[in-house]
């Protein structure tokens, strides 16, 4: 909010300097100006200075020829400068009116839209890319993950139930001899009170080895 008025002041000062420059330096000063600051008046000053110098060169036909070209170039410069200044003036007016509009809107709408002055319209949200908790996955991705979670959960429940059935002896272990029966009981007894994952792993390994031995 503080910047625009400051810049306006700066520009004002510059414009004043510009005027002072011309007044002091006279027609010659126009040649020393920044090309982006030139006015039609400056171009006339330049043409006056150059005209005077050309006149001093006398009536050599080559000078006359050069004079036509210089006049043409000066006309072009005049057109560009006038056009450019007009455009600058128009843009400046537009800028000022937009600035006024923004200030008006800022006054009307207090900072309830803290995410900046961007008016997005309905059905849009602003995402703060620096927020680690910003939304970043699509509904389809969520749907897929949930489906996979629920599928794995159901498989786990099935496996747990099946395990329970084996533990309680509801299902017999496949093809076991009397020796295997004892081994299985021992394994199951240990499986039921196995708490460390390490122990569980060794049981799985043993079971795996056991069934492998049976099949080969």
């Amino acid at each position, binding site marked *: 909010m503080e910047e625009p008025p400051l810049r306006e002041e700066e520009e004002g000062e510059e414009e004043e300097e510009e005027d002072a420059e011309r007044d002091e330096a006279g027609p010659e000063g126009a040649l020393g100006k920044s090309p982006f600051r030139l006015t039609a008046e400056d171009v006339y000053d330049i043409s006056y200075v150059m005209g005077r110098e050309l006149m001093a060169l006398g009536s050599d036909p080559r000078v006359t020829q050069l004079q036509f070209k210089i006049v043409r170039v000066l006309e072009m410069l005049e057109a560009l400068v006038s056009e450019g200044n007009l455009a600058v003036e128009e843009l400046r007016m537009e800028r000022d009116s937009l600035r006024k509009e923004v200030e008006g809107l800022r006054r009307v709408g207090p900072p309830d839209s803290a995410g900046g002055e961007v008016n997005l319209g309905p059905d849009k949200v602003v995402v703060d890319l620096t927020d680690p908790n910003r939304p970043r996955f699509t*509904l389809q991705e*969520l*749907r897929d993950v*949930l*489906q996979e979670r*629920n*599928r794995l*959960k*159901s*498989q786990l*429940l*099935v496996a747990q*139930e*099946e395990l329970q*059935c084996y533990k309680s002896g*509801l*299902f017999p272990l496949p093809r076991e001899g009397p020796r295997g029966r004892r081994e299985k009981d021992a394994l199951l007894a240990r499986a039921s009170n196995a708490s460390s994952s390490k122990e569980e792993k060794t049981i799985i390994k043993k079971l795996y080895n056991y069934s492998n031995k049976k099949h080969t």
Partner: protein
Amino acid sequence: MAKKTYDLLFKLLLIGDSGVGKTCVLFRFSDDAFNTTFISTIGIDFKIKTVELQGKKIKLQIWDTAGQERFHTITTSYYRGAMGIMLVYDITNGKSFENISKWLRNIDEHANEDVERMLLGNKCDMDDKRVVPKGKGEQIAREHGIRFFETSAKANINIEKAFLTLAEDILRKTPVKEPNSENVDISSGGGVTGWKSKCC
């Protein structure tokens, strides 16, 4: 192949506004426990509980949906496979009661036509904060020809009764047949596969 440990599988669905206690109702029924911390369900979840009715072992697969609007496109795709739907509101939250008609419309739009419906007014232990009289719940249930219970997951009031009643109502209109019929296929709608042949 493993033998089945149940005769029938019923798929139930819990719906209703966010925060009315759907997950707590389910947790009370499945685990006989209650937790006061509120954690919004993300999309959809489920629990399993096997009950015995009329000498039949019935496995209830109960789908718990997120009440939040932003999950609705996910949750409504689970209506189709449900055989019973529990619509839950909170007796201390008038808005959740007003939204019943919206949820009933959702059922009409997305669920099977013959789905068994039930209305639950949850949190009935909080009578001091009640804003929905029991009569209003009974009235709207009567108007739609569905059963109604006031429940409390916290105080364990009517929870088991509600689930068992819903299961009985479904059982009553279930033709007697072997369990390896479409009842066991829970892959439709829910996207849960891998059950069909392996249901110990």
